[in-house]
């Protein structure tokens, strides 16, 4: 018969300290977590309202002026979260999201791992080369989409050079649609790999802490 035993706190601490696998470290500071979830929620609203504005679903009789307002408001939210992350990175001198040449050199090996040609992923900094490429591209394309969104919001009153460079409203709309497709194609990959590669990393995005395996001697 199984008995539940209430242990004294000092004993519990000793058990944890003695048996913990690896070490628990803070890997995602509070501002990073706020950015991640805030940006994620904003992006979900932006993309879903954007798709609704692009091609209205006939089973959803939504008020379109409100859909447009939601699209614009959450775009500003997302930009705000991005600004938070950027400021946080500057203050902490955090360059973990900027891909470097040495990161990219590991990319073929990482692909070999994903295609089952290697048993383990190559060594990486905080993020592997695939993550770096995708995350960094997300920042860039989101800023591009926001910029084009701003140009279309002002209807050619400001940022006229953008209209001329791009070639008109229809091209702005086309580029924004392609960007949303890029997000829709890469976000599921991000979620899938977060769930199946290192669940401790996912936990860190909630609690801030992750467990690092013990260093091999």
């Amino acid at each position, binding site marked *: 018969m199984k008995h539940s035993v209430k242990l004294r706190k000092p004993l519990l601490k000793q058990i944890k300290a003695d*048996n913990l696998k690896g070490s628990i470290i803070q890997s995602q500071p509070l501002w990073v977590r706020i950015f991640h979830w805030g940006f994620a929620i904003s992006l979900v609203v932006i993309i879903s309202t954007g798709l609704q504005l692009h091609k209205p679903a006939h089973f959803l009789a939504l008020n*379109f002026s409100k859909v447009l307002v939601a699209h614009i408001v959450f775009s500003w939210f997302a930009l705000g979260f991005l600004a938070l992350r950027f400021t946080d990175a500057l203050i902490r001198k955090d360059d973990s999201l900027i891909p470097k040449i040495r990161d990219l050199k590991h990319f073929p090996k990482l692909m070999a791992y994903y295609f089952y040609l290697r048993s383990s992923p190559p060594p990486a900094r905080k993020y592997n080369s695939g993550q770096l490429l995708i995350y960094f591209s997300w920042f860039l394309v989101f800023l591009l989409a926001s910029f084009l969104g701003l140009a279309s919001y002002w209807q050619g009153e400001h940022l006229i050079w953008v209209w001329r460079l791009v070639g008109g409203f229809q091209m702005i709309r086309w580029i924004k649609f392609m960007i949303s497709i890029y997000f829709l194609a890469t976000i599921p990959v991000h979620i899938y790999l977060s769930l199946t590669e290192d669940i401790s990393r996912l936990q860190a995005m909630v609690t801030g802490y992750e467990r690092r395996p013990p260093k091999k001697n």
Partner: protein
Amino acid sequence: MISRRDFLKLVVKGAVLGNFSQLITPPLAKAVAAGEIHKLPVVMIETGTCTGDSISLDNIWTPTFSDILTNILDWRYDWIMNQVQGQEAYGILQETYEKMPQEYILIVQGSMIQRDNGHYNHVGYENGKLITGIELVRRIGLKAKYVVAIGSCATYGGPVAGYPNPTQSTGVQDILPERRVINVSGCPAHPDWIMGTLLHLALYGEPELEKFGRPKLFYGETVHNRCPRRSFYDQGIFATAIGQKECLFRVGCKGPVTYSDCPIRRWNDRFNWPIGCNTPCIGCTEPGYPDLMSPFTSHLPDIPFPGGTKVNTDSIGLGVLGLTSVAITGHVVTSLYKGRIQKNLLKTSSKTNHRPALKKAQGFHKYWLKKTNKV
């Protein structure tokens, strides 16, 4: 003479009431009678065109086109309107060019055909030599007081420059980069847009232009913003097929991306306009028309691939998403089969190296850790 402010008011009022030309005629007649208006000489060169803009311009009801020619503008050279032909007609063009530099308005209708130095588009015959459209437009345009491009072809290339653009056609601004070209776009351009721009030039000089060189007084707002069916859009009530009375956005209406005052000005003496007869706006006033606006029943343009194939943007989007879904599903199945997912989850989710063993100490509810060999 009426002030510019009053003129702009008449433009809007005329659009709403549908009698712009009627409203503008009396003050103009007074100004002409008082000698306040110096008749501007006008020459029109047609290049790669279907002449649709001339036909559209002829569609002014009151005052008639001849009234305008007689009283306001000195219409000197135009293939459709010429009373003479051959060298005699061409001589008038040359005379205007030589004797009235910086005085005349050059109107260009049709796209600039550039392939093989423009030799697929001859517009004149001079000293035993065929003159190309780009050559004549450049020569006449450089000495003109104003250069006005009318119609989609002259402004941005239009259907003539459509994919794959075998004639390498383009708009007038591209071959006259030294000059500011006033674009009166549309396929065809509305007669009020053409005549309103010419009247503004005659009375007050160059009108305020928007981002693509079009007069703001006609191209300042999108069709969507002024559309009488806008309330349907705002409420999310959409037509599911062409011919229905609701908002035509779902069946490819380009109103949201098209700048023109069609909804208030309408066509054929304010009789009707495309959305009024339940067909979507095709965005004919915008740069990139028709490639960027076709298929007309779809929001986004088809994307050309090598070999002449065109694929719809929505289909490409769905294809990419489908491919991602298939790739992720395949990876999940393979990872489960190879045990990678199970291994990764165990490796990253087990908290301790081994289960702690406890031994009961002497006493009530006291436990000590058993000393075990750690893994």
